[in-house]
């Protein structure tokens, strides 16, 4: 009804405007501070689409309807003005705004004005999140916030990226705490990017300490969009995208493959596998009989050139004095690069704000998210991408008559895609949030929040048997992919509850002493349950339900766990004349993950700020608009180590015994892991010094931080002697520390009608392992006292062995080493190469100097923006999938190494220049071990997003009763600059689903 009235009203207004008389308005706009004229200022008549822009002299002229009473003057970086028409030319003087500083930002359990913040926090807004056109919110954060690193896990539909704050905080779980509208959330990717108003990253301990024990790895506060007073609109957005891989490796052809295969079998002491005649006539034979002489390009067979993606977003917003509602519906569907792979996300949210009385208000939000991940059942579990790259062309995918060929003895990923069944995962998350605010007295509000979340998961794996027939006799089955058809069902369920009781008090004394206080109580509880069932030997392969499987081949299982956290916390802030700030936070947390005696922990923080620009000695220095120095110290904790780590549990199994001539299964059980009872919190402590400044009337803003953080009592599964027969227990053992800095700058200005802005951020962090109680955690990326976190750990190489004499006179790993293998340096000089004696730290594996860059331009109806992101320095291992031939003994040979490996067929000179070791399986275990031979500098720069938009501003809109119509085209992951070998992407290895480039075109309609 309301909307109808609105439409009628708009229609009437339109009619009126179309026939009404007009009058001319002129004027000049100047800067209030300097008196200079301002070009490019926009002047509009409210309630119409009529507008004009000032010329180079700051003058404007426009015709407005006769009855217009006001014009709106808007210019970036200045306060907006609404002027009443008085019949004479307007003299407008605009004053530079301090809007960005008066902006309110979200902090833990409340808000603060940006200029009052004393911790290290960064906020990004809707344009930065929804504007990135990513399906997943985590992807949209890449390159946005200095100190927040996003690592992508491939480009598969639905893939979620990993977010870390300021290097590494702890050795286990570095997942930041995600708070959505004040309530902890399981994943940031459950949200629809278009529903997000802002994301705030709390980076230092003074801002995170209020979240106590879950905050050590940083906090992301997400605020969703809500209706504002006096707004009524319908917004619809449609977008279509086209996905292509950024790069894919290539592999040698079928003839070359057989030649190289012969070389490797000969090198390994066997004889050539394929005869010269067979190789030479292969392509001829393939032409006449492709079924017996296949030549399959598995990559083009399996991986499509492109895949579609589409999104719909619809939102209704109405705000009145008493009720404000925003309801939105989001849908996105991303198809995969191979068939039968897709990810769908359905979001439905309703955010309501109520005002009952002047003292009592509340909110009631409901959010439903359903994600549907459909994938093929990949029998080998290697992933279709890996299969498309490892399988050599000598195996056939389909026969010439269209029937499926067995591939490599029944391993045919094409068959798996087409007929192998499915692996589908559904996740339904239901979140409710009820809030009541009661204003007890002026300045004191009590808030109660109750928010339950239910997650209903479902995973169905239908693994179908596929029969492959003989190339010569379609009636004869020669291979099957697996013994029988099986179905397994899994139904995880999670219930979590968050309850909060907060009291907020704000008071200003004598108009110079500004004081706020917060005390709160919070209760968190999570219950997990899982039920699964399976059956095998399905007689029919098109009924994927348990009843249709064989009763004797059934299995089932179930388990449950729960954890709880109880917290008391508070905050006090005080400032004198908005000049000198102090703040203290504290939180007292009790976790069910620890034994009663070691359960409670207190986490304090303190911070202070000094707004230097408020001092008289700086007030007259014009270029400096604002300058604040701030410092903080604080602690937070971490208990993310499983549900019952201090208890030693019995794990059950089955032992089979004969009884009465039959097999009987008897329950068996044993203690798997040792337990240390008195473990307690990990404590993270951060000291941060920073500044925020703006210059030149807010056109330039700069803020920076340096910090040092240290995490003590890290809960580690320290290696314990295996001979005690128990897996390693958690112990408070480790200490890591990180030092780093961050800088964020932006420049906003205009040239005539061209408005533009640039932003740049950069961060670096270096995490060291200070203490591991004398032990170390070894692997290709090792944690060793004194080393960096996840530092590469392996052998030092000294090129390739060229002669047998060199081999016999050198230390080697084992007796199969021959010329053409990698020579390792005998670090301890004992004449042997051993894992214990000769592995050394080879440099950090984590990215350094991560940066982001963005720019926005607007000219008349056009707007253009770009986002770039990159890593300034990173040691990256060339994955074995990139460089190793004959993986699994039969695999493909990367084109990359062909002609560049050491070979007995080469001249001495060619071998001296060889980049890759000889072809061998006996020595592959030695050659492809982690060594500096395979480490390269993985720095890169990537253009993440390019968007070009056009806002249609014509009478047409009015005719269609529209408030806005925008069309845009965009591209994600458009270009990449790096030193990686051709076919490799800096963010994934050669066996993972590729990172994808997405071209998009979209339409945004607003009523």
């Amino acid at each position, binding site marked *: 009804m309301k909307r109808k009235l609105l439409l009628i009203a708009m229609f009437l207004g339109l009619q009126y405007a179309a026939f009404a008389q007009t009058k001319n308005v002129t004027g000049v706009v100047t800067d209030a501070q300097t008196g200079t004229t301002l070009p490019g200022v926009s002047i509009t008549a409210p309630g119409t689409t009529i507008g004009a822009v000032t010329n180079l002299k700051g003058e404007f002229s426009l015709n407005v309807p006769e009855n217009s009473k006001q014009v709106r003057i808007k210019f970036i970086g200045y306060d907006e003005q609404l002027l009443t028409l008085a019949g004479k030319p307007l003299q407008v003087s605009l004053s530079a705004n301090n809007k960005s500083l008066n902006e309110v930002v979200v902090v833990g359990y409340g808000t603060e004005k940006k200029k009052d913040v004393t911790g290290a926090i960064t906020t990004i807004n809707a344009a930065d999140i929804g504007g990135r056109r990513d399906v997943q919110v985590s992807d949209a954060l890449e390159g946005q916030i200095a100190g927040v690193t996003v690592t992508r896990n491939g480009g598969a539909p639905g893939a979620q990226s990993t977010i870390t704050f300021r290097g590494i905080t702890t050795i286990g779980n570095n997942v930041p705490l995600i708070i959505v509208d004040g309530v902890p959330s399981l994943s940031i990717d459950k949200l629809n990017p278009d529903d997000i108003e802002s994301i705030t990253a709390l980076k230092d301990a003074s801002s995170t300490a209020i979240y106590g024990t879950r905050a050590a790895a940083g906090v992301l506060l997400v605020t969703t969009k809500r209706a504002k007073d006096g707004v009524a609109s319908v917004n619809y957005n449609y977008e279509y995208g086209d996905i292509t891989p950024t790069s894919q490796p290539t592999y040698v052809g079928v003839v070359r493959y057989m030649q190289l295969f012969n070389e490797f079998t000969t090198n390994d002491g066997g004889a050539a596998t394929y005869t010269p005649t067979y190789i030479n006539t292969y392509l001829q034979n393939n032409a006449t009989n492709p079924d017996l002489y296949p030549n399959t390009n598995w990559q083009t067979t399996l991986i499509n050139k492109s895949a579609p993606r589409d999104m719909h977003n619809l939102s209704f917003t109405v705000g009145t004095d008493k009720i404000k509602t925003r309801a939105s519906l989001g849908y996105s569907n991303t198809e995969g690069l191979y068939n039968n792979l897709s990810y769908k996300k359905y979001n439905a949210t309703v955010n309501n704000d109520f005002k009952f009385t002047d003292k009592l208000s509340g909110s009631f939000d409901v959010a439903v998210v359903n994600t549907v991940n459909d994938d093929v059942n990949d029998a080998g579990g290697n992933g279709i991408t890996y299969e498309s790259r490892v399988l050599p062309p000598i195996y056939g995918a389909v026969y010439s008559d269209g029937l499926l060929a067995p591939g490599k003895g029944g391993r045919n990923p094409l068959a798996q895609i087409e007929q192998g069944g499915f692996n589908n995962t559904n996740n339904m998350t239901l979140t409710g949030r009820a809030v009541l605010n009661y204003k007890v007295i002026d300045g004191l509000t009590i808030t109660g929040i109750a928010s339950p979340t239910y997650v209903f998961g479902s995973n169905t794996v239908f693994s179908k048997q596929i029969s492959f027939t003989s190339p010569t006799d379609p009636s004869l089955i020669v291979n099957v992919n697996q013994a029988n058809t099986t179905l397994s069902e899994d139904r995880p369920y999670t219930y979590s509850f968050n309850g909060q009781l907060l009291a907020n008090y704000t008071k200003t004394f004598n108009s110079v002493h500004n004081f706020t206080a917060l005390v709160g109580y919070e209760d968190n509880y999570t219950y997990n349950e899982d039920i699964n069932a399976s059956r095998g030997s399905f007689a029919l392969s098109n009924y994927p339900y348990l009843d249709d499987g064989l009763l004797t081949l059934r299995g089932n299982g179930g388990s449950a766990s729960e954890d709880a956290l109880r917290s008391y916390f508070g905050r006090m802030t005080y400032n004198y004349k908005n000049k000198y700030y102090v703040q203290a936070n504290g939180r007292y947390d009790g976790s069910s993950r620890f034994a009663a005696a070691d359960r409670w922990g207190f986490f304090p923080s303190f911070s202070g700020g000094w707004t230097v620009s408020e001092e008289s000695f700086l007030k007259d220095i014009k270029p400096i608009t604002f300058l604040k120095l701030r410092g903080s110290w604080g602690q937070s904790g971490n208990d993310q180590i499983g549900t019952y780590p201090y208890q030693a549990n019995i794990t059950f199994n089955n032992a089979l*015994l004969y009884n009465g001539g039959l097999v009987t299964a008897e329950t068996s059980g044993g203690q798997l892991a040792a337990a240390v009872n008195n473990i307690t919190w990990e404590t993270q402590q951060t000291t941060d010094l920073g500044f925020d400044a703006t210059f030149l009337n807010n056109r330039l803003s700069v803020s920076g931080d340096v910090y040092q953080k240290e995490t003590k009592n890290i809960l580690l599964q320290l290696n314990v002697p*295996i001979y005690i027969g*128990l897996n390693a227990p958690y112990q408070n053992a480790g200490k890591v520390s990180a030092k780093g800095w961050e800088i964020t700058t932006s420049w906003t200005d205009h040239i005539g009608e061209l408005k533009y802005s640039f932003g740049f951020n950069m961060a670096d962090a270096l995490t060291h392992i200070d203490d591991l109680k004398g032990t170390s955690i070894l692997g290709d990326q090792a944690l060793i006292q004194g080393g960096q976190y996840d530092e590469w750990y392996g052998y030092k190489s000294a090129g390739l062995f060229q002669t047998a004499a060199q081999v016999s006179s050198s230390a080697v790993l084992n007796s199969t080493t021959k010329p053409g293998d990698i020579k390792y340096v005998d670090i301890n000089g004992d004449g042997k190469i051993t894992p214990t004696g000769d592995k050394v730290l080879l440099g950090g594996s984590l990215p350094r100097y991560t940066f982001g860059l963005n720019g926005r331009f607007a000219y008349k109806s056009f707007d253009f923006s770009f986002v770039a992101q990159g890593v300034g320095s990173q040691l990256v291992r060339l994955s074995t999938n990139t460089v190793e031939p004959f993986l699994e003994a039969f695999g493909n040979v990367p084109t990359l190494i062909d002609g560049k490996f050491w070979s007995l067929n080469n001249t001495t000179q060619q071998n001296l220049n060889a980049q890759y070791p000889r072809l061998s399986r006996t020595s592959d275990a030695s050659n492809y071990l982690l060594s500096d031979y395979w480490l390269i500098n993985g720095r890169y720069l990537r253009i993440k997003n390019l968007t070009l938009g056009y806002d249609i501003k014509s009478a047409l809109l009015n005719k269609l009763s529209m408030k806005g119509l925008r069309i845009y085209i965009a591209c994600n992951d458009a270009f990449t600059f790096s030193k990686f070998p051709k076919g490799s992407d800096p963010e994934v290895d050669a066996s993972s689903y590729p990172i994808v480039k997405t071209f998009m075109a979209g339409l945004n309609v607003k009523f």
Partner: protein
Amino acid sequence: MKFSKYILVTGLMSLTACHKLDLNPLSTPSTGNFFANQAELTIAINDLYRQPFIGNDQEAFSDNYWNRATGGNAVTYGTMVSNDATALALWTNCYKAIARANVILASLPAAAANTSASVIASIQAQARFSRAYEYSLLITHFGDVPFLTSTVSLDASYSITRTPSATILTFIFAELDYAAANLPATYSASSDQRWTQGAALAIKARTALYMGQYAIARDASKAVMALAAQGVYSLYPSYRNLFLATGEQVNENILTVIQDQANGVFTTDDVVNEISRNAGGFGAYIPTWDLMDSYECTDGLPIDKSPLYNPQNPFANRDPRLTQTIVPFSTNWLGFDYQPHPDSLLVMNYSTGKLVYNNDTRGNKTFASYTGFLWKKFVDQTWATSLVDQNDYRIVRYAEMLLTYAEAMIELNTIDQSVLDAINQVRARAYGTTLAQTTQYPAITTTNQAQLRTIIRRERRVEFAQEGLRYMDLIRWKLAEVALTKPVVGLPDPANQNRAKWPFAGAPAIDANGIPDYTPYIASGAAKQIAVRTFDKTRQYLWPIPAIEITVNPKLTQNPGY
């Protein structure tokens, strides 16, 4: 107004429920209150019967077996290093079982209050048997190892060093004696068939033999033979069926680990890799020529000495165990005629009665069996359709005890009729006859120690092929440095195959250790070298102590060469 304020605050409070923090695992018990009664102790002891804790070595470590897909492994390539995964897995599983046995033993006194003495005694005997077995695996592979006979605290565990294997061996013998004395010879048919007196004696005999304690090996195996005399054990008449489902519960088996698909315990990897390509497999895990040529002719002579041997018909006139271990040519195997001849491009499909494309000849398929042979032992006709191997693992069977007794007596040089009888019983069964029917099988008659040593070694190799015993035999006989340095040979490529000399050009010379020499055949092109083997005798007779253990506890020393 005051009242409504009160209600509101209460309402706000009630929004925030309060959950307790004393939460315990919902679906598993914790150790604090476990092991307290018969049911719980039984659950704990059952765990030691599971597959990861009991097993023989991989046949792939030996010269009987070759894996075409990998070409070799850390043992046969000689590439084993101190972070080798196989060595680590054995080490880890052994110590897991030892720790669980120690926990059970430590809990017995407390449980004795509510558990009958006979149950306590049985559980104690089983736990001590299991622990002794694990230590036996450890010392035979690693030499000196950390020795824990009771639960140890984490702090105390860091100061443990390696105990000489001789000390541990003494302990093993004593423990197995205890187990043998306290475990029954048999269980009633309607109760769970658990470890027996015979199992304890057999493990004692095997361990003693491996460690060169021949008198102890003799006595322990003799005790098992005494049980056989009482009817507890006997040789099963059919060598072929002994390794199929029908042979799983026969009384030749002394110790087995059960596999059963219906209970979720089975393997699949070996199935497709062992069955023929015509039947849907890969023919990739295959018997070697070395094994093929170690079977005697029916006159009891090795092939290089016997006039009965025909290289062009190598399956004829041979020890019957050959055709029950390796698939003979031109026989119905899994529904097809098995014929790897390079010109046999078509073969009979017995289910349709038609000739079909032959996937098992290298004339058609590059990767058909490189040696020309496929495993038959343990493989039954169901494998082609079920693709599931649910054969029980045969860990120890009675034939091993007979040959252990004979070998111990030979090494002690106390050769008498009982030695010949022990060997001949095994041979007679192979020929489907009895000990006394010496005309029906080539009975051993020599009493020369050197000759008998050659004979017993050959006998063990052919009798136990594919049962995982060959590797430890090569190690303890110090023959690994001979056998595992010879190349793996296979058929020449079809183009180079001399059809007149199919499949073999002749018999290789076989030395006193039973190791054939293919050098002249490789030189002439009658055999193709398909892979190398390397064995570093300076270090490989012992496996490396896992590197991670030395990192965690530097007091542990490493074996030489690693």
